[in-house]
């Protein structure tokens, strides 16, 4: 079942601007992850934030997590043309059992040169 839902579905900005994407989910999670997918390729893991963390940085990426609102945001600062891709959030439910992730449908980001 699809748990994460990204917003917006598509986003077009100018190079150099910041891009913000949001993700909402429905059930309690162990962690939330963000992935990037270039057209026609596999997904690349960007960053993981655990349920007890509120913010995490990696290079030009900043991820926040609000477990009370069941939402996360991904900020890409100083965007570049190479950031053009689809971005997916994925959640791992809390509790034991499977390590399977549930992915959202993605935000398609276009960086205009």
């Amino acid at each position, binding site marked *: 079942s699809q748990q994460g839902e990204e917003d917006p579905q598509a986003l077009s900005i100018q190079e150099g601007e910041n891009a913000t994407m949001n993700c909402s989910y429905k059930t309690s999670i162990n962690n939330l992850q963000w992935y990037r997918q270039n057209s026609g390729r596999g*997904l690349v893991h960007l960053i993981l934030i655990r349920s007890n963390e509120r913010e995490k940085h990696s290079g030009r990426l900043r991820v926040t997590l609000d477990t009370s609102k069941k939402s996360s945001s991904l900020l890409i600062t100083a965007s570049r043309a190479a950031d053009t891709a689809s971005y997916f959030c994925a959640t791992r439910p809390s509790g034991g059992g499977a390590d399977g992730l549930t992915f959202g449908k993605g935000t398609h980001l276009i960086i205009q040169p």
Partner: protein
Amino acid sequence: DVKVTQSSRYLVKRTGEKVFLECVQDMDHENMFWYRQDPGLGLRLIYFSYDVKMKEKGDIPEGYSVSREKKERFSLILESASTNQTSMYLCASSPPRAQGVTYGYTFGSGTRLTVV
């Protein structure tokens, strides 16, 4: 450079054929996964495996089976291909959760399967 390798980038098969999609990882990961990706539907989990000879159904296992005879290889089998199985298939692997630490997935480049 660690890798998940899917044997084919593009495949065209006929309705009713038995289709094998192969995935190999070189990271000694216990967990392996098969997803399919369709426009407007995102990624949906078909099957996953914790270990050799172990398999678990995901959200959409109907029409598929899997095989994990060796740790590094996870095969997806379409028993009798149908046109509604035309899709992008993505394989992924990850280490198991250990001591409360979880890890991201490493994905292969995908196999775009067309069933005609």
